[in-house]
């Protein structure tokens, strides 16, 4: 079962939240859905789930619209907002009514509670007394209740402790390995590093990239060279003359583009500029993401060291 999103549009008053969003979430892999806050990730997920109506385009789950699914919880498990539970209700009761809505047996409650690691005593407490991490686990438990073929989790890492982050990465991978389609959103690319097989990057309501992780890194690295030198000013002058574009990334660190490593060494040696370290630059996922979303960020940092 897949999620297919095609040409989604949505306006909120003057704000164009989605402006023709299309992508596919395939079975058997984790798809990361990344973009800055306000880029349209949650809106897209809400439209897929039939909570909000799109102004244009369509979103299908297994070829059908969500609202026409006969047994929605067995098809799709979703967690949109971890705090979406009544604080006056016990955790177990929150799962119970969802199970009833899908005609699921009571033993399924114990199974999902075990999967997400919520203890029996925690499940008997009222949600109002939960920590953010516990709510997150409860939300994931609710998503897993129907043993769905498709999982959609909106920012599942929020509020989890380091141990919880490791756990959820493992969980997502194992769910994908079982042949399910998993869509995970995040506003931090780093959270998805090592987890996501594919990435859909969204910014200002448009898809910026829809690619595999290695492809994205390749594109972002762009054959740049990183070097350290005790005389950055001289190095910049020499390398620019040689035809490279130089950027300072630290007190004694530079990146050069337009020259390969060999030509860089040659140019520096010829100009008698001392250097200590030189390597082909490998972009991190974070950098690649920054690069992609630079123009798409709604809230630009006003000041800061990044030139």
């Amino acid at each position, binding site marked *: 079962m897949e999620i297919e999103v095609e040409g989604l549009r949505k306006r909120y008053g003057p704000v164009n939240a989605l402006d023709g969003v299309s992508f596919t979430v395939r079975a058997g892999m984790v798809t990361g859905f990344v973009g800055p806050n306000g880029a349209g990730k949650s809106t897209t997920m809400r439209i897929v789930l039939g909570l909000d109506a799109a102004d244009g385009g369509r979103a299908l789950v297994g070829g059908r619209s969500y609202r026409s699914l006969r047994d929605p919880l067995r098809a799709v498990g979703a967690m949109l907002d971890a705090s979406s539970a*009544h604080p006056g209700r016990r955790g177990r009761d929150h799962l119970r009514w969802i199970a*009833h809505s899908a005609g699921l047996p009571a033993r399924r409650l114990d199974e999902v509670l075990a999967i997400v690691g919520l203890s029996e005593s925690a499940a008997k407490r009222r949600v109002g007394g939960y920590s953010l991490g516990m709510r997150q686990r409860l939300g994931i438990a609710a998503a897993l209740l129907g043993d769905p073929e498709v999982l959609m989790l909106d920012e599942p890492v929020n509020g989890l402790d380091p141990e919880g982050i490791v756990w959820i990465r493992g969980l997502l991978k194992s769910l994908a390995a079982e042949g399910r389609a998993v869509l995970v959103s995040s506003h931090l690319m780093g959270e998805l590093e090592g987890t996501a097989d594919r990435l859909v990057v969204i910014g200002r309501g448009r898809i910026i990239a829809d690619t595999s992780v290695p492809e994205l890194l390749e594109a972002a690295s762009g054959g740049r060279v990183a070097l350290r030198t005790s005389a950055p000013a001289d190095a910049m002058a020499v390398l620019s003359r040689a035809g490279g574009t130089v950027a300072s990334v630290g007190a004694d660190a530079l990146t050069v583009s337009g020259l390969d490593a060999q030509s860089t060494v040659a140019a520096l040696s010829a100009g008698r500029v001392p250097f200590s370290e030189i390597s082909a630059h490998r972009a991190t996922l974070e950098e690649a993401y920054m690069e992609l979303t630079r123009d798409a960020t709604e809230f630009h940092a006003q000041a800061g060291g990044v030139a």
Partner: protein
Amino acid sequence: MRRELHAEWTKLRTVGSTAWLLAATSALTVLVGVLVMAGVHGSDGPQDLPKLALGGVQYGQVTMVVLACLAVGAEYGTGTIGPTLVAMPNRFRVFAAKTLVVAAAAAAVGALGTAASLVIGRLVMSSDGLPPLPLSDGPTLRAALGTVLYLALVALLSLGLATALRDSGVAVITVLSILYAMPIATRLVSSEHWKRRLEKYAPMKAGLSIQSTKNLAALPLSPWHGLGILALYATACLALGFALFRLRDA
């Protein structure tokens, strides 16, 4: 539909405030009714005893209104509307299930409060110069059944408005204003014509005419006609609530 009903029923009963509010509804109804009955004397002249005994519902309904408003308002307040519609995407069935569950809860506590009001009211009544409170004659049964229906209709009116307003606090104030402030405001209307008309068709007053067992000719609306007016209000509110629920984003 069975699943939706099951889920909505679980949702309602697993929130701590539900039991309190239901108990308070019954208790207030009985308490006020019994206090009034204990104070009736033969010297006050002929009285509509069943109406007096059941009058407590005017106060018991406050907690019922709060319950019905919370049943849907809290979904928006706490965000459970998301999981609800993810689990049950058919909005008509969710809304219908909620309506049925809330109406059933209201009718159940209404029946309990009505029966207890009549029985205890009969026991505490002073015997001087007063006939005993009839419990099983036609008009009393109509008043009793009507009171149960009244409470359920008030709950549905609240549910409909709360769905339209999506906020339990705002909904509570709106419903209580419609029920209570309207009669207070109309009290001061200078035009007799409008005053009578407003009083006649105010939801609470109209609905409560079902409680009358005597002197029916003097009523502005006959008992069932009055309850029918309240049912119209409730239906209109439910229709408005559902229309908005259906059209709006969750």
